[in-house]
């Protein structure tokens, strides 16, 4: 065990897997010699060799296509898309190829690839460094979508993703790479040190895909969140004094539907939080599932607290980003009703 930031935990997962499995290799833009713009692969090329971790042409479609072909051969490629905003040139490869390869070939070929991408806002990244595209993947049968909220989970989930025989989109909330940001942007940034989830084993371990974590037990209202929003939600519960149960989904596909329904059946109220635009966001699916399964226990409308239905607006970072006050307001709405 040692204390790690999320980026260190991700680095450790990659390092461990390169060491354990010669079929694991890493590539992407600037991930080789330089170690990635967020340093997730720092030193891995020097340590494991130039064919284990290398730079690619600036071509997301090419990166994912190459990974799928390698996966079909029998390797386990882990690729980095520099920002989730830039995953769209690879979208056809992910949807039409990776997601369907096993199904359409009657099980003859499959794509055991992991696509890592820093995602989300809170860093004044404007329209092209802030995207939260998770709903574009959750709609696609055959893709798994995973989002960690702590260093411990990041490492354990990433190792699970790499060893998974299905294609996994692994979205990393870059705002919490270095500390558990809770949305209070006017306060000094906190490091991961001393925070829950920052004790990380140095070696191999897994956190299973498809199990949520209850980050805060509560009886008044269930909050469904993932990534950075878990921390914002915890903060909102604290600030508002509302006895919220905060559930960190960890993976959106597969989804831990049992933990969700158990919690909402208990509290009778539900608030869903995400950074992505609201309309057709993953919150819509969560809302639909909850009302389908917990209808008779719901005492108030399910509330969504999300990014607005606009492109990510650079100068309005803190008006767009769903901060603890907006989440707290959502909690109050869910309780008042």
């Amino acid at each position, binding site marked *: 065990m040692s204390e790690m930031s999320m980026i260190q935990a991700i680095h450790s997962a990659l390092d461990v897997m390169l060491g354990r499995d010669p079929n694991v290799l890493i590539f992407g833009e600037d991930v080789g010699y330089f170690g990635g713009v967020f340093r997730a692969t720092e030193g891995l090329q020097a340590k494991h060799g130039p064919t284990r971790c290398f730079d690619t042409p600036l071509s997301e479609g090419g990166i994912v296509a190459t990974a799928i*072909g390698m996966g079909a051969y029998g390797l386990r490629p882990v690729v980095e898309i520099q920002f989730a905003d830039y995953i769209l040139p690879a979208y056809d490869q992910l949807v039409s190829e990776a997601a369907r390869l096993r199904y359409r070939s*009657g099980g003859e070929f499959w794509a055991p690839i992991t696509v890592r991408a820093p995602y989300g806002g809170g860093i004044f990244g404007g329209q092209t460094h802030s995207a939260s595209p998770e709903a574009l993947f959750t709609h696609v049968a055959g893709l798994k979508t995973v989002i960690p909220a702590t260093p411990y989970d990041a490492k354990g989930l990433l190792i699970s993703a790499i060893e998974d025989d299905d294609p996994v989109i692994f979205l990393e909330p870059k705002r919490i790479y270095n500390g558990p940001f809770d949305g209070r942007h006017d306060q000094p940034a906190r490091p991961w040190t001393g925070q829950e989830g920052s004790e990380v084993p140095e070696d191999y371990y897994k956190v299973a895909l498809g199990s949520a974590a209850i980050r805060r037990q509560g009886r008044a209202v269930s909050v469904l969140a993932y990534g950075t929003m878990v921390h914002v939600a915890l903060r909102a519960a604290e600030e508002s004094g509302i006895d919220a149960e905060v559930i960190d989904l960890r993976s959106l596909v597969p989804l831990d539907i049992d933990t969700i329904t158990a919690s909402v059946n208990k509290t009778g109220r539900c608030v869903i939080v995400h950074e992505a635009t609201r309309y057709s966001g993953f919150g819509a699916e969560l809302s639909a599932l909850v009302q389908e399964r917990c209808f008779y226990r719901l005492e108030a409308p399910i509330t969504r607290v999300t990014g607005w239905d606009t492109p990510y607006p650079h100068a309005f970072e803190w008006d767009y980003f769903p901060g603890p006050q907006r989440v707290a307001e959502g909690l109050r709405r869910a309780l008042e009703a």
Partner: protein
Amino acid sequence: MRNQPPLSLHIPAPHARPGEKPDFSYLTFPEPGAARRPHILTPEAEMRDMPYSLIRVLAEDGRAIGPWAPHVAPETLRRGLRAMMLTRFFDDRMFAAHHQGKTSFYMKSTGEEATAAAPSLALLPGDMCFPTYRMVSFLMARDYPLANLVNQIFSNAADPMRGRQLPLLYSARDYGFYSLAGNVGSRFGHAVGWAMASAYKNDDKIAMAFVGDGTTAEGNFHEAMVFASVYHAPVILCVTNNQWAISSYQGIAGGEETTFAARGIGYGLPGLRVDGNDFLAVYAATQWAAERARANHGATLIEFVTYRVAGHSTNDDPSRYRPSDEARAWPLGDPIERLKAHLIALGEWSEAQHEALARALHEEVRAAAKAGEALGTLGQNPPPKREMFEHVFKTPDWRNLEQRRECEVAP
């Protein structure tokens, strides 16, 4: 400068439309045997003439001439001939089956059979082909069971794709034939990745991938070329230029601006332009590129110049957009006739043998079709419903299980 005529938008148009005389004057062909054959380790910079030439081996009289004439055992040539003939019979039968409502869709490869049959025999076991939908002759040359093809085309209970995939979008891993899909071009980069994996593992296998002339316009064509070039991937990347992309002639893909083989130059890759109706030329070019790849000298782009004799698919009537006698005017002949003539010239084949083989293959196809029909055609005896929910993931998730139950009890 402002005194010149205004701009105008150029819209390419083919030389002949329905009712007009077929016109292939845009194609200029060197004689068989004329194209030079560089050593396989030649640097790209010394081969920049190749994309503008045309590699041809079979002369009018059936002889194999020039530096590209490969050494192929007559037995291999007979296998190739058999594969092409089998493909043609099979295509005809399945096309007819579509008209009888036994399947939803079919596409023929008539006239292009050599571009897949010859590579099939030139590649080694363990190599992987990333095909287009017009390459069943690749499987035919490797004795892939006709029953598998037929059962997939009829989507019956024995369909190896378990009813999930369109007819003719085959997958045959053990035969070195990668899973097809309906989107054009999106597997081109997989071939590069697969080849890179082989190099990464210090293996000796290579990959060979195909797209059509039309498909070269997709971004994924370029991405594959870039990766192949940068990492010296042991892959052969091929453009089957059959002059048409559904109703669009090859000029709409840029074929009037330069050759498709010339695309290689921009990536520092050798670009070979090959008579695609010449079995020996296709075989020789494949072997050249395969040797170069196995020698760690990286990728080659090959353009196979051929002609799509049939309509695009069962949904298409090509007489709506091209002269109906255009196929007959195609100057590079028929790959089956040309290989047959060569074998006869070699003294390794005869008209009588040819006829006997044709009868046998015809019967083989008939029997396979009948057996498939007995098992079931589209909508009759499909695979069990549960197959719909398998293989979405390696292990079904709760949605797959719930929905399977919901579906199985559905009215």
